[in-house]
């Protein structure tokens, strides 16, 4: 089970710049968290793997088969949740999932059982008979997650899955991912680092269409060890601090603002090294140190 991305570039028609450039990744079973700022090229990469978009250069292969040449090889085992998708507003959840199951070629009886499980998982059992047009954004997102899992996919591509979900929805989603982990390739693209922190065993950070880092969460955390500082400063100095340093968090307390900063050296004489860096800080550090690279 191998998804191989080799020197993939993508330039959209009418655009001067590349959304992806010479990007290579070798992805095996497990959960790969794909991180990057807005416009980094995450969604483009996801669409290429999902066979929605063709790369301008390079090759993506699933178990040795070029998916641009033979897209049905991966489509047969694919579950895909796009970042921006719609539903048929006059259908209810049951009808929509049955429709999607038919498109994915799932036998009706097996599909019905699967839909029951998935509706329970995404917590839509009670709302299953309501037209999807009446659903909130979060509920539609949960339907999107359910349809991506209908065919028990070997390759699961999920683009910003927790956008619009409430806290409980996000917890349930993380639980679902943990349940799914095993003999399948899961690619989770997001800019919410905590989602990746909770689920991924492998992380790729891309920026301006290029791969910046490919690493495990542990190694990524090590990279920022000894580089996170904290101190208390008055509110009036916040703006100046923001301009000078890479702030990872600001918490207002009685004695002032508790700020955390990612920096190679001590940013202020009263600053102290913070205890345990977070993945978000590691991510910020990575993006800031690679700024200027890329397309």
């Amino acid at each position, binding site marked *: 089970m191998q998804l191989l991305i080799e020197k993939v570039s993508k330039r959209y028609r009418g655009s001067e710049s590349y959304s992806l450039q010479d990007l290579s990744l070798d992805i095996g079973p497990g959960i790969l968290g794909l991180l990057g700022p807005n416009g980094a090229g995450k969604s483009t990469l996801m669409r290429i793997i999902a066979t929605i978009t063709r790369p301008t250069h390079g090759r993506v292969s699933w178990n040795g088969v070029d998916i641009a040449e033979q897209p049905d090889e991966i489509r047969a085992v694919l579950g895909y949740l796009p970042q921006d998708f719609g539903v048929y507003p006059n259908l209810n959840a049951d009808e929509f999932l049955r429709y999607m199951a038919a498109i994915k*070629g*799932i036998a009706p009886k097996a599909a019905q059982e699967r839909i029951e499980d998935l509706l329970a998982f995404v917590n839509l059992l009670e709302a299953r008979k309501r037209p999807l047009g009446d659903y909130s954004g979060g509920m539609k997102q949960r339907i999107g997650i359910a*349809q991506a899992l209908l065919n028990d996919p070997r390759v699961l591509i999920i683009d910003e899955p927790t956008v619009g979900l409430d806290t409980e929805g996000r917890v349930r989603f993380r639980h679902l991912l943990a349940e799914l982990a095993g003999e399948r390739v899961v690619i989770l693209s997001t800019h919410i680092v905590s989602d990746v922190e909770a689920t991924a065993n492998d992380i790729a950070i891309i920026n301006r269409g290029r791969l910046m880092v490919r690493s495990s969460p542990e190694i990524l955390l090590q990279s920022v060890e000894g580089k996170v500082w904290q101190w208390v400063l008055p509110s009036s100095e916040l703006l100046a601090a923001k301009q000078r340093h890479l702030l990872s968090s600001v918490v207002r307390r009685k004695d002032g603002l508790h700020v955390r900063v990612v920096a190679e050296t001590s940013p202020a004489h009263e600053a102290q090294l913070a205890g345990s860096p977070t993945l978000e800080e590691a991510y910020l550090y990575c993006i800031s140190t690679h700024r200027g690279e890329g397309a």
Partner: protein
Amino acid sequence: MNRLRVLYAIIRAGYLNKVRTYRFLVTLALTIVAGYIFVPPPTADYVTLAWVSPTTLYRGVYNSAWIGAMVALLTGTFLTLLGFYVVNDSVKRDEETRVGQIIATTPLSNSAYTLGNALCNFAVLSTMVAIVHLTALGMQLFRGEELAIELWALTAPFLVLVLPLMLLVAAIAVLFETRPKLRGGVGNLVYAFVWMFSLPLFSELFDLFGIMGVLSSMGATGQAMYPELDQHKSILGLEWGLTQDKALALFTWRGVNWTPEFLQTRLVLVGVAVGVSLIASVRFGHFDPSPESKKISGTPRSTVQNVEEVVESTVVPLEEIRLRPLGEEALKFRFIPMLLAECRLILKELTMLPLVGMWGSAAAIALVITGLLLPLDMARGIMLPLAWFLPVLVWSRMGTREARHRTDQLVFSSANSLNRQLPAVWLAGVFLAMATGSGVALNSACHGDWPGLLAWTAGATFIPTLALCLGVWTGSSKSFEFIYTLLWYIGPINQVGFLDFMGAIPGSMEAGTWRLYLVLTAILLGLALIGRKLQIQRR
């Protein structure tokens, strides 16, 4: 001053958004072709503006005045129909892009918004008129009957006759868009019906297109030169078969005398257009996303819970949920469930038709029964066209449904969607035609009318194939709604034999018209497949 700036901003943004589309370029190309067709050469087997007698065709020399007036009259007629479909998506665009909700939070008034959109539509239509005008100029030089260009004589008919009409169409388009029940497919059909059935009657009372004023001036000039010319026997429009065995008599016409009375009638149109755009602002929902039908009057009962609340109250604990894996057998593709799923989707849409609602199915059943019980001629000539008009708004979604509801990424990333899902969509459309026309088919079979049954089969396959092909290639349901309604009106309803694609006219069956439509069906189906393949690949 500030308001004018806001109006200008609305017009400019809407105009740029519309003219920077592939659809606009196609429409422009069609407009240029129309301008060419409107000025036929003397050897052509059709006429567009002439007076006819048993032996002679009379028309003016192709000078600036004649070509300007002729092309303006024809443009005014066809653009009042086609133009509506080109521009009637301004409010829809703001709604779909959610820009409308941002606009709604600004101090912009409803009336300024609707007027701005009407003027934006007008700017788009005026661009098309300007292109036809330039084409007319080119055609005068190309035909070469008189090479001297009189700019005012060529231009005045466009300014006086066509532009007021375009302003009216622009305002009506906004009015339709701001009325929830006239928005989208229903509005498209209603407008086409009003245009087709009411305008000929209305034109008797008011010279909407300015036709009578111009033709009487032309006819009088012609009669002065050829006393036998009967002013009442004029032809305006594309007419075939009149040029054979007739001599061509030319006269020189120098243009309309634009009297104040004549100009007043055109100004009335401008006033009506402004009024219509202001009426459009009345009760316009200002992008409130809550559907009107769901407004609840009175005090809400305490037992009412919203969907989110209901869901949260019955959460299944995570530890109780397990996803059962799917075996290989469950994942073997089966076409029948796919087809049934598409049929269910289509049936659902039939029962949810705007305005018709649940009565859609009842009306379809009534048409089936009457189609079966009425005498065959009536069933074929009346009930079949009705039965095959009722689902227009369902067919028109074929090929566009995925883009319309943004499910395209979900559907196109499924295995073999080209050779599985598309055929299922097509077959579901054919089944819908067969089901709604089944009464007439049974009636034909009972009477042993096999040619009629063949024509019926051609129609039942042709309609959904046309819908699918147009949907895939244009990405819009409008194209099918427009073309099919015209075809339906001219062919089966007005009994033009070669456009009778369903066998509604007895003569067309004997002529074997159905063969033509079976061949067309095969071509359109092939085009739909190619179009969808490109759609999947070109991203």
